[in-house]
């Protein structure tokens, strides 16, 4: 075994694993800062601008402060589940990133280095599955707190996430029709070969997926499980210190995950835009990871924009939206795509 193979077989994968754990955390920090600044600008304010350049260190200060805070476990709480749930939420959302390709592969001295950790043939299923394990964390947390507001928040969350899984799954299937694979890398590569992004081919799928994705992450206007004006802080009302930080980070990591999925499934992942236009070929000069970042930033920005604009849904309307509109729409879309795919 030469030093070179050791490097490429052991050290590089280890570095990659470290990077893929750090990547969502860094994105979360960027996202928290971005959200607070952008929402502030939408509202005619400045937002955090004292800590570090333009306040970029604000989330770092927040995280560090939370780390040094007392960790309270209410006396009536179920200790095991109370402690388990933030871990479950955090781990499930971070683990999913193992299957997310952040870019294409490139070669150094004959060794191919992939910008992902695991390219499973059922990567898509794994990501969706892992991201919905998080809901168990929310339920456990709400129940274990042994308090009414967290319980109501958890109940809302379960109903909401389970309902929105259905249109989410149905739209993902339409993508799989075309890509004929559940491997996320293959899905991107298929878009490269087809020279068209699925978002333009399947606009309905994209819209349904995006709306369901916002609901899955419990974000405005679907932020009912933690609706502050109703449920105080929802399922994490009783959490303090680092455990609360876990919920907080997991929520943002989940947003990054959903944005990544949207980009990979519908907007060509790390592919540069306009591959067909000769004049714009220079766009391909930017590395794939950069394109991927630009694209997910757009969707993360969209999250913030929506939050700054819309009021909150009421629970019955939220359920009506999914069962009366999104599910039938997704089903119809599925049938039409299936027919089109069969006939063509």
């Amino acid at each position, binding site marked *: 075994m030469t030093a070179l193979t050791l490097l490429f077989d052991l050290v590089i994968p280890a570095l990659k694993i470290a990077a893929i754990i750090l990547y969502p955390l860094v994105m979360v920090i960027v996202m928290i800062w971005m959200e607070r600044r952008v*929402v502030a600008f939408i509202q*005619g304010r400045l937002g955090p601008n004292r800590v570090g350049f333009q306040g970029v260190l604000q989330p770092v200060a927040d995280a560090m402060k939370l780390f040094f805070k007392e960790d309270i476990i209410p006396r009536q709480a179920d200790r095991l589940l109370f402690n388990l749930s933030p871990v479950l939420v955090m781990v499930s959302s971070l683990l999913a990133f193992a299957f997310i390709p952040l870019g294409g592969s490139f070669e150094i001295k004959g060794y191919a280095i992939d910008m992902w950790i695991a390219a499973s043939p059922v990567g898509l299923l794994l990501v969706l599955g892992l991201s919905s394990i998080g809901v168990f964390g929310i339920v456990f947390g709400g129940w274990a707190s042994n308090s009414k507001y967290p319980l109501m928040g958890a109940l809302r969350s379960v109903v909401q996430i389970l309902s929105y899984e259905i249109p989410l799954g149905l739209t993902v299937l339409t993508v799989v029709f075309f890509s004929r694979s559940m491997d996320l890398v293959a899905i991107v590569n298929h878009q490269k070969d087809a020279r068209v992004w699925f978002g333009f081919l399947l606009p309905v799928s994209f819209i349904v997926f995006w709306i369901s994705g916002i609901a899955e992450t419990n974000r405005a206007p679907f932020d009912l499980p933690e609706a502050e004006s109703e449920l105080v802080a929802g399922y994490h009302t009783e959490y303090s210190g680092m455990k609360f930080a876990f919920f907080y980070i997991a929520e943002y990591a989940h947003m990054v995950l959903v944005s990544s999925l949207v980009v990979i499934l519908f907007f060509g992942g790390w592919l540069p835009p306009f591959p067909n236009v000769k004049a714009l070929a220079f766009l391909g000069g930017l590395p794939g990871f950069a394109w991927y970042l630009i694209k997910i930033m757009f969707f993360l920005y969209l999250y913030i924009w929506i939050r*700054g604009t819309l*009021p909150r849904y009421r629970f019955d309307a939220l359920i009506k939206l999914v069962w009366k509109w999104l599910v039938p729409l997704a089903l119809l879309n599925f049938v039409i795509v299936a027919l089109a795919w069969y006939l063509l």
Partner: protein
Amino acid sequence: MAFKEIELNMGPQHPSTHGVLRLKLSVDNEVVLAIEPVIGYLHRGMEKLWESLTYRQIVPLTDRLDYLAAVSNNLAYVLAVEKLMGLEVPPRARYIRVILAELQRLASHLAWVGFMANDIGAMTVLLYSFEDREDILDIFEAYVGARLTVHGVRIGGVPFDLDEQVIGMIRRVLDETPKKVADIEKLLNDNRIWLHRTRGVGVISAADALGLGLTGPALRATGVAWDIRRDLPYSSYEDFEFDVPVRPGGDVYDRYLVRMEEIRQSLRIVRQALGRLRPGEHRVKVPRVLKIPAGEVFHTIEAPKGELGFYIRSNGTDKPERVKMKSPSFINLQSLERMSKGYLFSDVVGILGSLDIVLGEIDK
């Protein structure tokens, strides 16, 4: 999990109780079965305190009742005292009072729409409306030096004359506010979520509203055209032309529309009052030690939140024997149960918001 009914305790510390109100709710799967407000967490013993203060010392304390509309409170109390004394104030003072009171209504309604939208989850509106409200607070600050607890109406008139600087600021607000209000309406009026959360929610009929003693915009939203400024004018309101907005529905949305229209009518009144302001005295001399012969009086005005009244009983000394405040929020909050039974828990927040309560004047 086979539970039917949960007892929920909202407050006295809860993000959307607008202060220190406590609601005892019993909900079945988020549907409200019963609701009981518990008040008194801000009871400061104002009425007892007033009995040991002179008539003049009471005025600044009225600011702390409805702290979102301090001038209206001053005005109601001062008008009652003046009625008891049989004192006539000069026309310029009356007009300045109208200008201040209408600006205060504007500030109060702007704060209301912000809080209301925030309760429903549209927090950007709160920031916008508070920014607009700051312009009005600037006027008060330039006029008397205080922002919130203004103490802008005194027995016998107003403390200062309106100078050119303040008038200029008022004119700027008159010009800019319609645009800003339109911005807020753009965010809300055609928003499907907002409509869904407000239309047909918290409905109350005109008969019920009257029976419960509901007043102000909440009453006008049930189709009863009743505005004390128009129907029992005080402080020269009869000189001004304005409409009394009325809506038939009695729901949260109509209360919102009525208040938004009142903002425009208030601007109209201020504009007229500024135009008709004639030079003259802005106060009459009132003796330093104010002794009022024995008597009693009850006087009400149209405050932003509804009918605000003071009952004053004098006994010939410089201190009143009894001052009782009739607070609109106290009466309006009483109707919360009638309005929110059968609606969802999330709606209670919106209905409570739409009533525009201020705990300061409920608890006194």
